[in-house]
């Protein structure tokens, strides 16, 4: 079986959950002798050096089966390709590769119209689509966070979306929904890494029977790492991830301030991650100001350490420095790969009680949950975690190993083998 995986970004070039999972799947499929996987990862002109003159699709760094889709002229409003040569190159690529399955992991930089074009070029191929966020539903970067007050959104509608984008009328969102659904209608099966997403997408109008839950799976990065050392206190906390607003590192720093104000300072917080440049001006200033103040304190008074970016092969060392992993996301965190990574190293997770974390963590059994976007609640949870005797041991014991790459690959292979007769053939003349 030939499987074409189509996704946004290549994890070698840009970090992110969607591309990481797509790539893990690709590597997993490569290990299966009966499968011939091909990866097509979209890049944008930021990587100008990779754009070979006149090319629209090229190989990538001499790697077998890996190709780059050299995106350009992308229409971010309608999420479409504005360049016919790209469409022609993609058509030709499909005709050459002739995959049995085309599995999309995103449409960004690629264009939604590639879905419909795939169906036209390969009427009999199976088309799968994995949702990694809510970008189809929500024009606010798929986060489903309301732009005017950052509250969590539970339902899109023309008027509600207009409220988030006052310059754009309800009609535009009405057409947007029709546009997205028409392209998504060529998909045989959707997958989501979390179950709550199925509810959200079926409420939006997709056929729930077509949406399957396939958990994200990663290789076990902890192989060979020693278990957590025994310590009298479990008061070392860590944040792993991007420093963008929705990941909530600013909330964690607010909680630290509050704990200090309450006179509690017997703890440390280590921040691992980057992309602060993508945070909003307000949050970036808040974070930078905090870190500058912290650096100005006498060494003994410092509680927060900024370690910067990391690769997965550095995880063991970074995890060894903490007891707890904090996931303070203030959006519908879809899955939380960092939860899996913490669990690989036996670290219990403290997370906001929404989305994927709420679904995956059983509070009091393998981790702790706090009220989303509530710095006070996070502060109380940190204090409890740092002071309650036996809590860490009990929760660490309750951790089950996260799904690995093999589990995910098996689940997708089962879907690839399903019979999807009856799917509409949009754009194919009868």
């Amino acid at each position, binding site marked *: 079986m030939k499987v074409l995986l189509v996704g946004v970004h290549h994890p070698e070039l840009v970090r992110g959950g969607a591309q990481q999972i797509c790539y893990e799947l690709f590597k997993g499929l490569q290990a299966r002798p009966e499968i011939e996987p091909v990866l097509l990862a979209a890049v944008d002109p930021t990587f100008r050096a990779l754009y070979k003159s006149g090319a629209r699709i090229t190989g990538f760094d001499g790697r077998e089966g890996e190709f780059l889709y050299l995106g350009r002229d992308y229409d971010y409003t309608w999420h479409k390709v*504005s360049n016919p040569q790209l469409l022609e190159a993609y058509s030709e690529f499909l005709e050459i590769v002739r995959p049995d399955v085309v599995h999309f992991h995103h449409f960004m930089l690629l264009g939604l119209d590639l879905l419909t074009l795939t169906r036209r070029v390969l009427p009999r191929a199976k088309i799968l689509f994995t949702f990694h966020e809510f970008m189809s539903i929500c024009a606010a970067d798929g986060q489903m966070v309301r732009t005017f007050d950052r509250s969590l959104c539970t339902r899109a509608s023309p008027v509600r979306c207009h409220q988030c984008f006052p310059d754009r009328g309800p009609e535009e969102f009405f057409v947007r929904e029709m546009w997205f659904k028409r392209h998504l209608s060529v998909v045989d099966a959707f997958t989501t890494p979390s179950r709550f997403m199925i509810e959200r997408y079926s409420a939006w109008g997709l056929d729930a029977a077509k949406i399957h839950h396939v958990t994200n799976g990663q290789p076990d990065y902890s192989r060979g790492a020693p278990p957590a050392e025994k310590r009298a206190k479990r008061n070392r906390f860590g944040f792993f991830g991007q420093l963008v607003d929705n990941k909530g590192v600013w909330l964690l720093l607010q909680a630290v301030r509050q704990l200090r104000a309450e006179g509690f300072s017997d703890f440390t917080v280590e921040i691992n991650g980057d992309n602060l440049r993508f945070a909003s001006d307000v949050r970036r200033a808040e974070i930078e100001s905090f870190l500058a103040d912290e650096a100005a304190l006498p060494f003994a008074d410092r509680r927060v350490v900024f370690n910067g970016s990391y690769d997965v092969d550095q995880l063991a060392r970074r995890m060894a420095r903490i007891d707890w992993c904090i996931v303070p996301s203030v959006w519908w965190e879809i899955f939380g790969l960092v939860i899996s990574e913490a669990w690989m190293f036996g670290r219990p997770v403290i997370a906001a009680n929404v989305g994927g974390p709420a679904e995956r963590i059983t509070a009091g059994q393998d981790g702790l949950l706090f009220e989303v976007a509530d710095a006070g609640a996070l502060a109380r949870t940190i204090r409890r975690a740092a002071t309650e005797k036996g809590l860490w041991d009990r929760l660490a014991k309750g951790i089950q190993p996260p799904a690995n790459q093999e589990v995910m690959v098996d689940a997708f292979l089962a879907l690839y083998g399903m019979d999807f007769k009856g799917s509409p053939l949009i754009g*194919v003349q*009868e």
Partner: protein
Amino acid sequence: MTTPDLAAPDLVAPDLAAPDLAAPDPESNEHETFDEIEYLRIHQDVAQAIARGEVASGYAHYVAFGVIEGRALPSPTHEPRNRLLVSHPTPASVPPHETRFAIDSLIVAPAGGLMIVGWINDAHDPIQCIRIAGAGWRVTIDRARFVRVRRHDVEQALDRNGQHPFGFFGFLHFDRMVDGAGPCLVEIWLAGGSSVLLPVTPQVVGDIELRDIALTHLGTASFAGNAAVERVACLDAGFGDELVRFNRAITRRIVATPYVERFGPTGKAPGARSPRGTIVVCLYGRAEYLFLQNCLFAGLPGIEDYEFIYVSNSPEIGETLLREARSSSLVYGLPQTVMILPGNAGFSGANNAAAAIARSGRILAVNPDVFPRDPGWARKHLDVLDNAPAERTRLFGVPLYYDDGSLMHGGMFIDVDIGLSMASGIPRARRLLRVEHYGKGAPADATRFTRSRPVPAISGAFISIDRAWFERLGGFSEDYLFGHYEDADLSLKSIAAGTVPWLHDIRMWHLEGKGSTRLPPHEGGSAVNRWLFSRRWSAMVEAGLKGPSPTYPAPEAFSPGPTTRARIRSTPAR
């Protein structure tokens, strides 16, 4: 408009008795357009100079000396009004005067039109005409052709807050090229016989720009009284006709040189069917509707029997459209033609031009922001054509829906607004036709509005018309500017020719007004269109076509009659 300059030259009445108004035939030849006799009667010293052989004629004297000396011309000028005349250049001169005035701008489109904008304090001695002379041409615009408007800036500067319309603008269309370069002489005549000559350097623009400037002035002008009524009323005396004629010439010029490219299946492939319907979509300003419609019309049952023609009134999006059409034909596979016009020919001009290259005998004029609500619409439309009596399908529309799910309308009717115009100083009732919609905002399934039935008019957002009938009616009237009322006009033309439009229950979404960009000239265009539509159809409407239950041409004309033979398939809506 400029701020009034109170140091502007003033007018003073010449020290002469009112001249004899008996005029020679002004059209016998160009030389006689200068009132030689009257000029010599007024200035007897000139007559004596001619007798002595010192000058050749009164006109020659006027050109060489009279202007400089501030000699008065016969008042008011007897020249033919509102017509371009050939003349010799005249040197400028500004005599001392008293009445305050200013010319804000003189705009000339060498291809055939000019506009003059200014203000004058003529409350006690009204303006009579304005003569404008350029290099080798001159024209006298009659006062009736001027639109008089309120100028709050002038009222403030003159400390006058009355109702007198100090502002004026005039527009004239002519059918020959003129030299717009260099200064012009503007001569203002007042009814009392005084005049002034003023050199003005014109702003030279293209004809489209001139039209848009004129419409913007009209659309933004301030009037004493109800602006909507006065804006229409002021068009009666010629300004409206001038604009319509000027615009028609622009439209004809624009549609004469389109760029046309076809995409997708051409119909020449073996086994390919000729289209049964041509969906004509007129685009203005926004290109994205091409791919949105391609996406949302493609793949629906029966769509293979249609072709699309996208005709663009926005040359600036031409390349984008061609690119999108190329992409869309690859992704969606619909046969489509893109026609790029070199300017805005308006809804009518564009649709007529596109219809002329249609490959089917059925034209569907569809707005870019119209999308299928009924997935089976394409086949249902053909079912209506195949099964309903011909007189019910010759021209028909469909129910249109808002994005919120409610009915936008199920057909249109004509009503009459009665406004009060104060332009003449005496209150006068002004009857203006208004297009109304059946069932605006009604629940989606309000069958009284959605059922198949004859209606007085149908919306241009979706019109299905037999091509032969369309051609017999002369297509959409190109007298209307940009877009408005052409649909009702076509409907009434059809009624006048013997076929009442129908509405058939084939449901479409319509995101009204979202398919194009509205600019300032469009407001003026709307006024002209309403004025024109009212003038053209008031008699028929008043004869029984007025209101939601019309009786013209006969009481039974709007009865749905026996159940239609159409076997229309029922397809669930979204």
